[in-house]
C-alpha cells in the first residue's frame, strides 16, 4: 500500500514529517524476522518517535504498551512510525545500518532531506515511489488544508467530515487544540499520523485565518497555496503538445 506516499503540504511543513517503515518481504526474508523487528522497535523507542502504532492494536494516542506490540508481532509484521525531527530519524537509520538486520527500510519525506541523510550515513537508496498527484474528479475534494491533515493517515481513516467538524468545534471554542489533535490522530491505527504537523496545520487554519474574508476569497487563497505546493498540469494535454 502507498499509505505514506501522498501526504501533501508545503515544504516547510513537510520538513517536520518523516514516516519510517520496516517491511519483511514475504518469501524472501520474512522467516525469523520477528526477532529483528523487536530489536528495531527497541532502537526506535530509545530514540523516541513522534507517533507509532500497530494494526489491530492502536497508536501512541491510545496509550499503547510497547511490550504488548512485541507480543503481537510476528514474522510478517511491519513497523511503522513517524518522526518530526530529522536528526532522530538519522540516528535510527544509523543504528539499524550498523546492526545489519537485512530488512527493507523505507522512509517517506522530502526527497532532498532523505537523500542528504543517506549521503551522510553512506546509504545507497535503491528505489523511489514518487507521488504525481491526484487526478480524476478532483472537484469532489475539500479545501487543500483539509487534505493536508487527512492524508497523514494514508488508509483514509481520518475523514473529511471529521476534520471539518473538528476544526469547526475548535473555531467555536468547544474544544481546545490538544483535544482536536487527539480526535484527528485517533483513527490512524498505524501511528503514522504526525501530531506535530497536525498542530501546525490547525494553528495555521485557526489563528491565521481572517474571518472577515469571504468564502470565495479563502478558497482562492487556498488554491493559490495549493498551486505553490504542487502544480498539476494535465499530462494528456502536455503529451499532445
Amino acid at each position, binding site marked *: *500500500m*502507498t*499509505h*505514506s*506516499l*501522498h501526504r*501533501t503540504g508545503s515544504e516547510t511543513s513537510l520538513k517536520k*514529517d518523516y*514516516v519510517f517503515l520496516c*517491511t*519483511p*518481504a*514475504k518469501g*524472501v526474508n520474512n522467516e525469523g524476522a520477528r526477532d529483528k523487528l523487536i530489536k528495531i522497535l527497541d532502537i526506535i523507542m530509545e530514540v523516541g518517535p513522534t507517533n507509532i502504532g500497530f*494494526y*489491530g492494536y492502536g497508536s501512541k494516542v491510545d496509550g499503547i504498551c510497547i511490550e504488548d506490540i512485541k507480543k503481537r508481532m510476528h514474522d*510478517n509484521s511491519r513497523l511503522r512510525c513517524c518522526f518530526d525531527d530529522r536528526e532522530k530519524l538519522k540516528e535510527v537509520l544509523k543504528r539499524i545500518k550498523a546492526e545489519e*538486520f*537485512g530488512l*527493507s*527500510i*523505507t522512509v*517517506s*519525506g522530502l*526527497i532532498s532531506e*532523505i*537523500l542528504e541523510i*543517506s549521503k551522510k550515513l553512506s*546509504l*545507497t*537508496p*535503491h528505489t*523511489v*515511489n*514518487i*507521488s*504525481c*498527484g*491526484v*487526478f*480524476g*474528479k478532483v472537484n*469532489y*475534494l475539500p479545501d487543500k488544508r483539509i487534505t493536508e491533515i*487527512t*492524508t497523514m493517515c494514508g488508509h*483514509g*481513516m481520518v*475523514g*473529511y*467530515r*471529521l476534520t471539518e*467538524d473538528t476544526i469547526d468545534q475548535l473555531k467555536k471554542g468547544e474544544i481546545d487544540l490538544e483535544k482536536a489533535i487527539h480526535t484527528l490522530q*485517533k*483513527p490512524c*491505527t*498505524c501511528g503514522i499520523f504526525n501530531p506535530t504537523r497536525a498542530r501546525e496545520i490547525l494553528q495555521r487554519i485557526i489563528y491565521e485565518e481572517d474571518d472577515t474574508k469571504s468564502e470565495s476569497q479563502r478558497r482562492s487563497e487556498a488554491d493559490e497555496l495549493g498551486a505553490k505546493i504542487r502544480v498539476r498540469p494535465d499530462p*494528456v494535454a*502536455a*503529451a499532445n503538445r
Partner: protein
Amino acid sequence: MRIDFDKCIGCEICLSYCPTQAIRVGSEENDTVYISEDICVECGLCRRLKICPVDAFIESEETANFPRVVRSLFSDPNTTHKSTLVPGRGTEESKTNDVTGRTKRGEIGICIELGRPGLGCTFNDISLMTMRLKELGVGFMENNALTAFMDSKTGRFPDTFIPQRVLSAIIEIVVKTEELERVFQAIMEVGREIDTVFSIGIISRFDENGELPVLQHLAQLGVSYAPNAKINLGLGTPLVDD
C-alpha cells in the same frame, strides 16, 4: 456494518467519524441513525474506535462473506489479504523492492490508487481502468491483491464485485520507460470516465550514480511530482541490484 436500532440513542456522535459519510440520519419525520449499505466500505472504524456510548454497531454476517467481504479487504487496514499475506491494500509495492526486484532498472512501476484521497471507488471504476490497461498489453504486478482477483485475460473483475465500494485500491503495473507516455495518456483518458479521484505513484530505481532518470522522463511528459516521496534505502538483504 449495521446499527442496532434497539440500542441506538440517536446521539449522532458517530456521524463525524465515518470516512465515507455512510452513517446518516433519516428524514425529518424519522430521525433514526442508519448506515447506507451502498456507501459503507466496511472499514470497521466506527466499531473499532468504540465511540458509540451504547455499543450499537453490529458487524453483519454478510460483511464476512463474498462479495461484500471485498469491501473490508480493501478498506480496513487491519485485514490481511490471503493472496499476498500483506495487510492493508495488499501489496508491498516499492517497500521491499530492494529484495524482490519487482521494478527493475529500465522499468517504471505505476501505482494507480483509485478512490484516494478519501473518496472511495467502486469495482466498476477499477474495472474500467484495468480493462483499458489490459487492452494496452501492460504487465500487472504479481503479489498484488487486485491482480489476484482480476481475470488475467480481460482485466475484468467478477460481476459480483462490480457494485462493491472500497475506500481505495491500488492497480500496479510495470512498463518499459519508452511506454510511459502512451500508458499515462490512457490512464488520463479513463480518469475522465470514472466518478472518483485517483492518485498516481511512480516507482523507479536509482541509477548507478544515485540519480533518478525517471524525473527527466516525467518532466518531458509535463507531469509534475511532489517534493516528498517514499524512498527504499536499500538496506534489505539479499539485495537485488539489477
